[in-house]
């Protein structure tokens, strides 16, 4: 059973359709990177999934709870999800610990459990020494880490992160990505809204490109193959023309994409059946070509994203 499931999710504000007929499923433990330009409907989609705003049409199920639903079920849903907003706010005149105590109580945690979680996560995110300080004295990066704690310290089943590494230095960003990976390994279902394509490529099991409509959805490798078609890239030591001839005789159509004249040479070939890769390699070896590299060729996430968004105009 999917942990997050959207069916025809649509939201209209006045005459403007912010999100149109978005349908997808996420299994438990999957991490989905939600990509799209500013104003594409990412935040609206997340808010609908959280039950914060109602869909104009369509339904969604998150952690087994349907939205929209009655307030009691929505309260249950909100207890099982975590949210990191794009610009996380805190009560600046309270300490980090007091802020977390407040939110922990709102999530139903009390006593030693709450104190233990706060101590554990402050330590984990490197804020233990500053936990008693007013949030007003925190840097942007520290606030971002505190917001991450707030989003996860009640151990939600589903977590929504909006730009989780925004404003962080490279080292902190790396730590946050490691934390997100550990949450995924712990079985949490995660949706990350981001403009950072490298981060999305590194973390995501599933990519969703949204621009009002869901333009692309699937694992990065599948989306990449869909974009380029099944292709193989070969780098050989010898002459490109000889390699192409060898492959043609073996029944494969290859094109030279880079030939320096004295090798190495890069060849791309269309390969409908990936299991034919050993036959390709064998044909080249029999012909005396030295092989430096063989790898399936897929489009980069940037190419996938730009193609999807560009195709939508």
């Amino acid at each position, binding site marked *: 059973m999917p942990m997050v499931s959207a069916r025809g999710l649509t939201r209209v504000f006045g005459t403007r359709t912010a999100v149109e007929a978005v349908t997808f499923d996420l299994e438990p433990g999957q991490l989905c990177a939600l990509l799209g330009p500013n104003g594409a409907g990412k935040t609206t989609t997340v808010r609908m999934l959280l039950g914060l*705003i109602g869909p104009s049409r369509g339904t969604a199920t998150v952690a087994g709870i349907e939205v929209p639903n009655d307030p009691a079920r929505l309260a*249950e849903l909100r207890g099982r999800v975590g949210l990191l907003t794009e610009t996380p706010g805190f009560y*600046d005149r309270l300490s980090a610990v007091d802020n977390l105590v407040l939110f922990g109580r709102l*999530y139903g945690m009390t006593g030693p459990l709450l104190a233990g979680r706060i101590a554990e996560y402050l330590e984990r995110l490197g804020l233990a020494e500053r936990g008693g300080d007013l949030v007003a004295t925190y840097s942007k990066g520290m606030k971002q880490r505190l917001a991450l704690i707030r989003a996860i310290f009640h151990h939600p089943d589903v977590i929504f992160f909006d730009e989780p590494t925004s404003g962080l230095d490279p080292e902190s960003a790396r730590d946050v990505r490691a934390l997100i990976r550990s949450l995924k390994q712990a079985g949490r279902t995660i949706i990350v809204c981001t403009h950072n394509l490298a981060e999305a490529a590194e973390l995501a099991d599933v990519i969703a490109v949204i621009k009002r409509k869901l333009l692309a959805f699937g694992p990065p490798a599948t989306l990449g193959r869909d974009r380029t078609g099944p292709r193989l890239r070969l780098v050989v030591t010898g002459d490109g023309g000889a390699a192409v001839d060898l492959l043609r005789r073996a029944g494969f159509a290859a094109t030279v994409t880079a030939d320096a004249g004295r090798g190495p040479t890069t060849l791309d070939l269309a390969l409908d059946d990936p299991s034919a890769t050993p036959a390709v390699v064998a044909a080249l070896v029999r012909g005396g070509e030295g092989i430096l590299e063989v790898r399936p060729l897929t489009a980069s996430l940037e190419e996938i994203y730009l193609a999807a968004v560009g195709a939508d105009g």
Partner: protein
Amino acid sequence: MNPVLSIFLRKELRDLRGNPQVLPGYLILPAMAVILPTLMLALMPFDPTAIAAVDPDLVTLFRLASRDPTLAVFPERERMFRLLVREFVAFFLLMPVILASMSAGLAIAAEKQQRTLEPILATPLSDRDLLLAKLLAAAVPAVVVTWAAVLLSVVATAIVTQVRLGTALWPTAAVLVTVGAVAPLGGAAAALLGIRVSVKAADIQAAVQASGLWVIPAGILLIAVVGRPAARSLPIAFLAVAVVGAIAWWLFRINLKKFEREEILTRWV
């Protein structure tokens, strides 16, 4: 108290202590409400001619005191003092209205501005608990400060009147019910109006301005229609408690009914 309400209330109180937009009101208004009437009682001449010399308008008050049937049983020199003590109740009715509306006007708007609203709305906190927390956070400090000011004022009045009249003037039962019950309920009603304004506001400036525009006239109306008659008669004071309590309850129901997380999240510049 519900633990969520309790922690929210503590948060709001701590937040209030360092809030430069609201804190001055909590210091200045009570000080004025205690010091000005006490000075007036301390300096008020007994003789109408002398009163006219201080301020001709005060003669009107003196005449009102002379004609007021509820004051007829008291010696003439006491009547003006008793009238003033009774009329000063208006300060203590208006004080929780102003203070609570100031805090309540910022209740939701400030959360929006500091970007804490969405994380709060994304928790399991119910609309009812959030509203109650905001109501208590706005009304409780206002009422506590008002009652403290009333206490100080009562003591100061007793001392001054003991010295000047030879008898200490204490508040009547009607006055006590008015400041003890009508004032807090008025403060609660003002807070609820302020919260509604804050929910609808597109920005914090609009929230504060609209709060003032709506709530201050409502507070003055409360004093004119309910407060002054209540301070004169115990049955009317109890009736005022019922009426203002019903208004506050109705405003709470309206707030709860109209409290839309979606509207709050999307109505913001």
